[in-house]
C-alpha cells in the first residue's frame, strides 16, 4: 500500500485532482455559463440570471424533445432488457455449437462507431423500409446497441448465479418457467437495474442515429440541442444541458441508493 504522504503519494493525489478537473471541467463550464446574464455563451459568466432557464422551460421545442427522448429511451430500455436478458439466459444456460461465435456477434455493435451505424442504417432503411420512419425506426435502431449493452451487463451476472438454484426450485415443485421467475430473476435484480439504466442513458444521449433516422416532428432532445447549438449559441442550450446533468445526477444517486440498500 502506497502512503499518500510519501512523495509518490503526492503525485497520485495530483493526478487524481487533474483527472477530476479534466472530467468534470466541461460540465462545470456549461453549468456556470447557463447562469450568465449575457445573450451569448460566456465563460466566466457575467452577471447572474435565471432567465435562460425560464426561456428553456417555456420553449415548446425543448419540452417536446424531452418527452420524445423520454419515450424513446424508456421503450429502448424495456425492450433491450427483455431481449438482452433472454439472450443472456440462452447463452449461459444452454450449450450449443457456435455459442461463443453468437456471443461475439451479439456484442459486436458495441465496437462500431455511432456514425457508421447511423449511415449504414440510413442506407438499409432506404432500400428496405421495414419500419415506419420516425420514432419506431429509431427505437429499432437503438436496440442494436441497447441489447448488446444489456447483454454485456447480464452475461457475467448470470454466469455467477448457481444453476443449481433453478434445479432446487424445480425439485421443490416449481415448473421450469416458474422456477426461472421465482428464483433466477430475483437473483438478477441488481444487474437488471444497472442494465436498464445503461440502455436508457445510451438511448437518451444518442445523437448520430437520432439525427440520421429521426423525423423532424418527433426530434429527441439531443437533436433539438444539436440544432440549437448550430443556429443560435445562446445560454438556453447551456441551461437545458445543466438540467440534464441534474437529472443524470438524480438517477445515479437513486441507483447507488438502490444498490446499497
Amino acid at each position: 500500500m502506497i502512503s499518500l504522504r510519501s512523495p509518490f503519494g503526492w503525485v497520485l493525489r495530483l493526478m487524481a485532482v487533474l483527472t477530476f478537473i479534466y472530467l468534470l471541467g466541461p460540465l462545470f463550464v456549461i453549468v456556470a455559463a447557463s447562469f450568465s446574464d449575457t445573450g451569448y455563451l460566456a465563460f466566466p459568466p457575467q452577471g447572474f440570471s435565471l432567465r435562460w432557464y425560464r426561456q428553456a422551460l417555456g420553449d415548446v421545442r425543448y419540452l417536446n424533445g424531452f418527452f420524445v427522448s423520454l419515450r424513446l429511451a424508456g421503450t429502448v430500455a424495456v425492450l433491450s432488457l427483455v431481449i438482452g436478458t433472454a439472450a443472456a439466459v440462452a447463452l449461459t444456460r444452454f450449450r450449443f455449437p457456435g455459442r461463443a461465435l453468437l456471443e461475439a456477434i451479439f456484442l459486436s455493435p458495441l465496437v462500431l462507431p455511432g456514425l457508421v451505424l447511423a449511415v449504414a442504417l440510413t442506407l438499409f432503411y432506404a432500400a428496405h423500409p421495414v419500419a415506419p420512419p420516425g420514432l419506431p425506426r429509431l427505437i429499432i435502431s437503438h436496440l442494436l446497441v441497447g441489447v448488446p449493452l444489456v447483454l454485456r451487463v447480464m452475461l457475467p451476472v448470470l454466469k455467477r448465479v448457481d444453476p443449481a438454484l433453478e434445479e432446487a426450485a424445480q425439485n421443490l415443485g416449481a415448473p421450469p418457467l416458474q422456477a426461472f421467475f421465482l428464483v433466477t430473476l430475483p437473483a438478477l435484480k441488481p444487474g437488471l437495474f444497472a442494465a436498464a439504466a445503461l440502455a436508457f442513458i445510451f438511448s437518451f444521449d444518442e445523437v448520430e442515429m437520432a439525427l440520421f433516422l429521426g423525423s423532424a416532428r418527433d426530434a429527441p432532445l439531443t437533436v433539438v440541442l444539436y440544432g440549437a447549438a448550430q443556429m443560435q449559441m445562446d445560454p438556453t442550450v447551456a441551461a437545458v444541458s445543466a438540467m440534464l446533468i441534474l437529472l443524470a445526477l438524480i438517477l445515479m444517486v437513486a441507483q447507488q441508493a438502490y444498490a446499497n440498500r
Partner: protein
Amino acid sequence: MTTVSPELVLEGLARRYGSTTAVARMDLAVKPGELVALLGPSGCGKTTTLRMVAGFVEPSEGRILLRGRDITTMPPHKRDTGMVFQSYALFPHLTVAENIAFGLQRRGVPKPEAAERVARMVALLQLQGLEKRLPKQLSGGQQQRVAVGRALVINPAVVLLDEPFSNLDALLREGTRIELRRLQTELGLTTLFVTHDQAEAMAISDRIAVMNKGRLEQLGTPREVYDRPATRFVASFIGRANLFVSTDGQHSEDGIALGAPGPGTWLLRPEKIALDAAPAAGPGSVAGTVEVVSFLGTGAQAVLRLPGGRALLVEGPAALADLRPGAPATARWTRPDLTLIPGEN
C-alpha cells in the same frame, strides 16, 4: 423373512454421453426408511445416478420406480423427491423461513399449516431465531441445515443428498452427519446419499453401493463391503488394503509366504498384521525394513518395505509408532486374516 416392497427401485438404469458410459445398467432397490450411500471416486457415475432419480438427467435406458410408480420420464417438479445440493442452492433473496416454505407453497399447502410445518422444521434443525435471516447472513453449517430443512419439510418419498457435507470443515462434518443420521432414522426417511468419502459412507449408511467407472461393483452393509469386498477396487477403496495374487495358494506372485488356503487374489487388512523383531518363520510371516511410522492418536501406522520391493501397510496400537525407520521387523498373520476376493478387477 418379511418382504417389504422397496420405496425406490432402479432397473437397469444407464446413461451414456456419446460413446462414454456414465452409468452402466444399474440395479438398486432402496427399502423404506433405509439410507443407501452411492460411494465412489469422482467420475464413477454416482452423481449422474442421483440426478437421474431427481429428473435432471434423462436415462438412456432403464426405469426408475418411486413407491411403485414409474417416474422415468416425469419432469423434476412432479417427482416427489427432496434434494440437498452440494452447493446448498439456497434462494439468496429469500429468508430462512421463506426458503423452507418454498416447497410447501408450490404444493398449495394452506398458509397456517405451512407456517406450522416450517416452525416444526426450524425447531428440529435448531434454527430458531434465524427465520428472518438471509442465507448470506448464515454460517456454512446453518446454511446446510436450511438446505436439509427445505428438502425434508415437503415429506418427500425419497431424500437425495448430493455430497451434503463436503463444504463443511472437518470438525463440523462429523457432528453434522451424526445429526443427519439421527434425523433420518427418527423420521424414517428413505434416503439416497452420494459421497466420495468412504469414512462418511461407512459411518451413516445402512447399505453402501460402491461404484467405479459407471458400474455398481458391490452393494452391501458397511461391514459386508469392508470384510468381504467383491472386487479389488472395493477392497482398496473402502479402508486400506494389502492385496496379494497367488497362483499356487502358497506364495504370492512376489514370493511372499502367504499361507493362503488356495489360489486367488487375497486381501490382508493392515490391522490384521502384527509386527515383531523375531525372524520370519514359515507361511504367514515376512521380514522387511520399517520405512515410515505415523502416530494417529488412537493407534499407529507403519509401512514395511519387503525384499521384493512391495510396501506392506500395518496398523496397530500406538506402540507401533515407537519403531524406528530403518529397523528390521517381521510381519505376521494367520490364515483366517486372509480374505479371498471373488471378482478379478
